[in-house]
């Protein structure tokens, strides 16, 4: 079986700055993969490369065996790979329902049909009562859920979540974790960028660690948490200090 997503030796440079260097990993169908690393490790850049916002400077990306380097983001989305944003990007002056309709129109030309799909997804994330509120007026927790509903409305086979729990309180994070596990049960493949290690350990099957743009480690959550290289990356070089 070939992997659903395969990232092969991807590098991305901005001028003289290296954001990603020779990153490779693959994600099998149905797996939740955690992508972690300290600030500036190049996680979001990698997302942007995979989803077509900027093509990788080197390396290749395959989705369902198809090479998708250089595909524009809209085409990537229509192929079945959708993403959320670290800083939520609601379409502020559209209602919650209309935001989701925009996603649903990805696979239908009929607005009424898109509304049906959208309402269904809003029910899944528990926003159906807020359908007619302007998205810009939602509190952060609901905006994150809206992003998830909007992405799910595009009927993806794989979703990439960029810090969906950032800025949430414990109860809201718990709800999002529930949603991720729910989506996983339905067989959807997910790649999750997250800082909260507890959430990562609970939701992910595998973890890839990035540090200064390069892949530092890959393995099961237990392997990663106990990896001394990962600890050094997060806690700093312990040279000279007695830890």
């Amino acid at each position, binding site marked *: 079986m070939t992997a659903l997503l395969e990232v092969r030796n991807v590098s991305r440079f901005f001028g003289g700055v290296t954001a990603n260097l020779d990153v490779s990993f693959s994600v099998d169908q149905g797996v939740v993969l955690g992508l972690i690393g300290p600030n500036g490790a190049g996680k979001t850049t990698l997302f942007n490369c995979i989803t077509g916002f900027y093509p990788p400077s080197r390396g290749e990306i395959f989705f369902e065996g198809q090479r998708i380097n250089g595909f524009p*983001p*809209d085409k990537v989305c229509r192929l079945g790979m959708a993403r959320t944003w670290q800083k939520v*990007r609601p*379409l*502020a*002056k559209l209602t919650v329902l209309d935001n989701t309709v925009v*996603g649903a129109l990805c696979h239908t030309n009929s*607005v009424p049909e*898109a509304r049906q799909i959208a309402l269904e997804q809003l029910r899944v994330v528990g926003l159906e009562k807020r359908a007619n509120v302007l998205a810009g007026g939602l509190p952060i927790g609901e905006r994150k859920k809206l992003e998830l509903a909007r992405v799910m409305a595009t009927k993806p086979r794989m979703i990439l979540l960029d810090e969906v729990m950032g800025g949430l309180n414990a109860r809201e994070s718990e709800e999002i974790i529930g949603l991720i596990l729910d989506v996983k049960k339905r067989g959807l493949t997910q790649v999750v960028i997250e800082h909260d290690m507890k959430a990562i350990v609970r939701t992910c099957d595998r973890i890839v660690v990035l540090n200064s743009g390069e892949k530092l480690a890959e393995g099961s959550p237990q392997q990663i948490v106990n990896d001394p290289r990962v600890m050094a990356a997060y806690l700093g070089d312990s040279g000279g200090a007695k830890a």
Partner: protein
Amino acid sequence: MRTFLPWAVAAVALALVPLWVQSPYALHIFILLFLAIALGESWNIIGGFAGQYSVGHSAWYGLGAYGAFILLQRKAIAPWFGVWVAIAAAVIIAVAVGWITFRLRGPYFVLASIAVAEIIRLAALNWKELTNGAEGILAADVPPLRLGGTVITDWNSKIPYFYMGLGMALFCIAVNFLVKRSKLGYYLQAIREDQDAAHSLGIPLTLSKNTGLAISAACTALAGGFAALYIGFIEPQGVFGIEVSIQMVLTCIIGGIGTVAGPVIGAVVVVLLSEALRASLSSAHLLVYGVLVIIVILTMPDGFVGFIAHRLRRKAAA
């Protein structure tokens, strides 16, 4: 249906106006109003829904006007037929331009749209064999409008222009409604709110913007053809000048961009104020636009419609 009822009532009421009002000046004001509404609604499709602030729509307005008039003069084709050719030309050029300039974002797009309109204006100014240059074109004899052999009008009063203008304004409003509720409308509004987010949700940016621009340019060219027929004279600065574009944008901003009612309200405010102050301002009538836009941007950046909607929401919440 509830949405359309007030519009239908207003349309019927307006259609009855010439039964009571015969003063040519009053009818003239109505015709100006219809023209301003049609232009505002036309710009609203690409500027309001898609958030692409073109300050070069005079290009499509002028192409509509010149196209209709040149065909009338050269080939004796009646403007109400000729304008369709002009519209087609405007759409083709608009899409060609859009394909290039829609890559630009924000202020750069604004500047490019101005440059395109200037280029077309200068071309019209200098292609004297076709356009008669700066002297402009005075309408040749406009043939009477016939339907199945009977003469409907020979254009001697303002009433036919009134109905034609009303029809055009309603048409542009209807186009706005249709676009807003279509897949394209959702796409354009998503692009306005957040281009990257829209892109990531599967929206083809350039194709959507160009479709919007084509519709917008077609409506604008239609209004240009109408204006030329009504005024009976065109010259490059008058139809291609940046003032035309600015008036289109400001009508929408003042009323509230991205809403169907906004351009209507903006047109009413601006046309009535300009006319009321025309005596004291004479050629400086654009002062009204300047002052209004400063006030609107500083105090109600979402226009009258946005301002009132916000008030209503606050009242409902309280």
